[in-house]
């Protein structure tokens, strides 16, 4: 605000990008100022590693039922056993192993949903913003329509009609998250399309495809990256919610939301079957949102402190 002497690195960023390395360094400077974001990146990386190496890390198979160990509490509680670090569920499966394998599902859901909705969103957005006219009108009306429904409700009904399951869950969630990407891309394209650098590319004889994907798109990536991060966490959360309602991944898949649904009837008897899966969801979503906040602060010039 009243800070006349503060160095102002944005001055550089207002000029055409200098070089990839330089840009990344500036980005990292702003990103790493945010301690939460760095913690988020760290936790998220850890989760990715856990997901990748799940079969080697997990002490047991996620589906193996220990008939002699039903609802065994964690070892620090009386009656707990050291081999089941987070206890076991009602049919004697090791909760920790199921959580570790569940990380694969959650991260995969996030990744696939974001890929789906991001790619279609970019296509639609570029098309709408670049073509204008009736294409634009039809596409954007359609997006408004999807946004008129509460997203989880729409996904829920979609899955109910398509049939419960992991694949349909991902399709439904991708569909309800996709309009955000279309809108963002379109508005970014509209802002960019009349800039000098686009005109000069056009004058230089760049084709439509090249203009759309090579010239305009890279310059509206920042808001898309932020939105993709936020959608990643929303997708995980919504998929878990659908799983909890019995419409997402079906048992015995060790998906965290589905695990919670199975555990519901034991909540007053065995708190651990409920606590740990939810904690896993919370930590995952929180770490991604921390990264998202950091990205937004680092990438969005409007919010950058001047």
């Amino acid at each position, binding site marked *: 605000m*009243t*800070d*006349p*002497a503060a160095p102002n690195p944005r001055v550089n960023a207002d000029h055409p990008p200098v070089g990839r390395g330089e840009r990344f360094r500036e980005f990292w400077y702003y990103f790493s100022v945010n301690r939460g974001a760095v913690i988020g990146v760290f936790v998220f990386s850890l989760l990715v590693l856990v997901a990748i190496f799940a079969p080697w890390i997990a002490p047991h198979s996620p589906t193996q039922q220990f008939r002699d160990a039903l609802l065994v509490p964690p070892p620090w509680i009386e009656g707990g056993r050291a081999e089941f670090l987070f206890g076991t569920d009602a049919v004697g499966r090791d909760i920790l192993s199921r959580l570790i394998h569940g990380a694969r599902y959650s991260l995969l859901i996030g990744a696939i949903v974001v890929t789906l909705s991001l790619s279609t969103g970019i296509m639609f957005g570029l098309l709408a913003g670049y073509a204008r006219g009736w294409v634009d009108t039809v596409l954007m009306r359609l997006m408004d329509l999807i946004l008129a429904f509460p997203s989880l409700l729409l996904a829920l009904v979609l899955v109910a009609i398509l049939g419960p399951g992991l694949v349909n869950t991902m399709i439904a969630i991708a569909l309800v998250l996709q309009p955000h990407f279309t809108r963002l891309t379109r508005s970014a394209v509209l802002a960019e399309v009349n800039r000098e650098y686009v005109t000069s590319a056009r004058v230089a004889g760049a084709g439509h495809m090249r203009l759309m994907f090579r010239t305009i798109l890279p310059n509206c990536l920042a808001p898309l990256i932020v939105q993709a991060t936020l959608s990643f966490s929303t997708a995980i959360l919504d998929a878990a919610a659908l799983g909890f309602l019995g419409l997402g991944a079906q048992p015995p898949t060790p998906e965290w939301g589905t695990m919670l649904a199975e555990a519901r009837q034991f909540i007053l008897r065995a708190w651990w079957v409920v606590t740990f899966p939810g904690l896993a969801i919370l930590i995952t979503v929180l770490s991604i949102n921390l990264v998202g906040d950091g990205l937004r602060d680092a990438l969005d010039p409007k919010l950058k402190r001047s």
Partner: protein
Amino acid sequence: MPLLEIRNLSVAFDTSAGLFHAVDGIDISVESREVLAIVGESGSGKSVAMLATMGLLPETATVKADVMRFEGRDMLAMSPQERGKIIGKDISMIFQEPVASLNPCFTVGFQIEEVLRRHLGLRGRDAHKRAIELLELVGIPDPVSRLKSFPHQMSGGQCQRVMIAIAIACKPKLLIADEPTTALDVTIQKQILDLLVSLQIEHGMGLILITHDMGVVAETADRVIVQYKGHKMEEADVLSLFENPQSRYTKALLSALPENAVGDRLPTVADYDFEAEIR
């Protein structure tokens, strides 16, 4: 006893790059019924000194002064509550951006009557009547209906008139005008300046005019302080300043006036180097 007396004022901002001294060891004093102009380029710290006096700087600012007295009362030692009883009443201030300076969510009437209630205890019909008088005083036509207007429904010049009405509402002893005409059209600038000067004479106020416009200074001020990079370069009464400027910076400022242009190029202050003159 001067109306406002400031000695050795320093204001430093705590920034990520360390302390930044916006104002460094400045003395300012104003008598009642006097028009003092503080001149300098943008960034010379001319507003900061006045904002410090009003207690309007953000918390990142450290204000130090040997003396900061208004009518003999120590402004530095004052609690925010005590200061709140003086500013807006005995000292008031108007700013550079009149439209942004008025709250977009409240009517003009509300924003005027609020001061009347706060400092004079006027309410209801009394406040309303006084608000109409004030708008008439600052030359706004049809004041009764104007009171119900929102700032965005008025022009920049009218908004500045409203700001002036708010500032003089409690018959202040000192009015600080921080670049009051910079954001306005040239034709309006003159009207607002004339209004300020006539109000100053009528009410017998002290007026501090912060500006970068030497033309404005020549027209209105009794005495001038020239400021550069947080330091005072020169202080003189207006005639001697224009006729016999002492510091090289002042000379540069004056030579940058359009009527003093030599040849086809107008000199700017950036053509000179004054660093050596800062003590």
